[in-house]
């Protein structure tokens, strides 16, 4: 089988006033590939995710997504309905703040089941069984299936958001600082979980993180951003062990033994 990239971006540019949030960014993501984006605050990481996933329109450049049917779609020309469909089925988004990805007033089981229903599941018993199974997978006691996320800790909320996102087995998942705002010990456990699920399901993931150790653990490939540009990219271990750009050397030196 001829493999092709899932997502291909060329020459992305976007300015906010005088700030070049993105400046000539090109990248590809292939099936099953985990790509991490690291870089200082304000370097354009979140903006890049938002542009790639169609939430923001760039001033320059294009993003193409290749669907399961093999057809290529321009993300910024497909129209809102098509994009929403994509977001419900093929793609997933894990937000830094679980409140942005969960429905806080709906039960844990409902949060997971809702995504299944959005892709056509109708059988109540089957949906509940699958939701239970996913709670187990993200290490939430299935006895809490009827509790709302409001009753959960931050780490549990984040794991629930991951279950809700992955239950439909998306082909491509965008994650923006998925462990930000959590305790260090909770972070480590969540990272393990993400690593296991991503490997088991063979997901393609675009992960924004400031945590170099997390990038080392999860990512096959690493992009380093600074001031809206990708200053260095390549195999994760190569970029971290033999960094070429001055900024990457600074980044690696400031996190010893990542």
């Amino acid at each position: 089988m001829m493999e092709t990239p899932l997502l291909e971006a060329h020459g992305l540019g976007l300015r906010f006033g005088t700030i070049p949030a993105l400046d000539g960014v090109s990248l590809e993501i292939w099936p099953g590939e985990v790509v991490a984006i690291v870089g200082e605050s304000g370097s354009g990481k979140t903006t890049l995710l938002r542009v790639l996933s169609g939430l923001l329109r760039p001033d320059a450049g294009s993003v193409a997504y290749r669907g399961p049917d093999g057809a290529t779609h321009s993300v910024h020309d497909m129209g809102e309905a098509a994009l929403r469909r994509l977001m419900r089925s093929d793609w997933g988004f894990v937000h830094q703040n679980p409140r942005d990805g969960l429905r806080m007033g709906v039960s844990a089981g409902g949060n997971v089941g809702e995504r299944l229903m959005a892709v056509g599941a109708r059988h109540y018993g089957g949906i509940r069984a699958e939701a239970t199974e996913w709670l187990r997978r993200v290490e939430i006691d299935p006895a809490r299936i009827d509790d709302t996320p409001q009753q959960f800790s931050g780490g549990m909320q984040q794991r629930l958001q991951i279950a809700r996102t992955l239950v439909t087995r998306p082909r491509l998942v965008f994650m923006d600082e998925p462990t930000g705002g959590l305790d260090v010990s909770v972070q480590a456990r969540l990272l393990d979980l993400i690593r296991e699920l991503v490997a088991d399901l063979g997901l393609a993931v675009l992960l924004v993180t400031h945590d170099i150790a997390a990038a080392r653990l999860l990512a096959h490939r690493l992009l380093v951003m600074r001031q809206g540009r990708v200053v260095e990219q390549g195999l994760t271990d190569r970029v971290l062990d033999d960094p070429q750009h001055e900024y990457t050397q600074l980044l690696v030196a400031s996190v010893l033994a990542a």
Partner: protein
Amino acid sequence: MSPAIRTEALGKSFTLHLQGGTRIPVLSGVDLAVEPGECVALAGPSGAGKSTLMRCLYGNYGAGSGRILLRHRGAELDLASADARLMREVRRETLGYVSQFLRVIPRVPTLDIVAEPLVARGMPREAARARAAALLTRLNLPSALHALPPATFSGGEQQRVNLARGFAPGYPVLLLDEPTASLDAANRAVVLGLIEAAKAQGTAIIGIFHDTEIRDRVADRLFEVHPEQAFA
């Protein structure tokens, strides 16, 4: 027979931007060729660049100049210009590396750490686990430990996990950085047996062995890595 791996005028230096752009030349003009079934030991004083050469071959360090030609999928491929995706394919199928220290992945049981590269090459999980278990047992790692993550293992135990992971797939080219450094005599003998068996299978091996007894037993020849003149 053509080499399994060879370098042409391989060069490598490091530029330390945080130290005023200091340039550290390490390798230059390295021409090394290793045939299938041959074991070459890298020699040279501490700091000469033996580990650096090995890391360049594995793509962990980028080559500064020259070419690294690997026989992969029946053709010669220049690793010096291979992109990340191709490099991952090469590491999955053709090129193995046993580093000096195991990089522990949290929560993953020892058995799965060893089985993982086999699964990545398409072996069914149960068969991969069986092969992993056999190799770990051969390396005297009791089966009670196979289900545990190696985070709490001793240095020698971790090194044996690392060795099992490196030897399990039977890569055509295998890089070994101090494979017996933290092992006792019995386990060194096992590693000796693994290296000899791999050679007999046609594996090309490049090794760094401070243990001269092992080195003299397995190496067909030495390859001298010359320290570059600093500030040349």
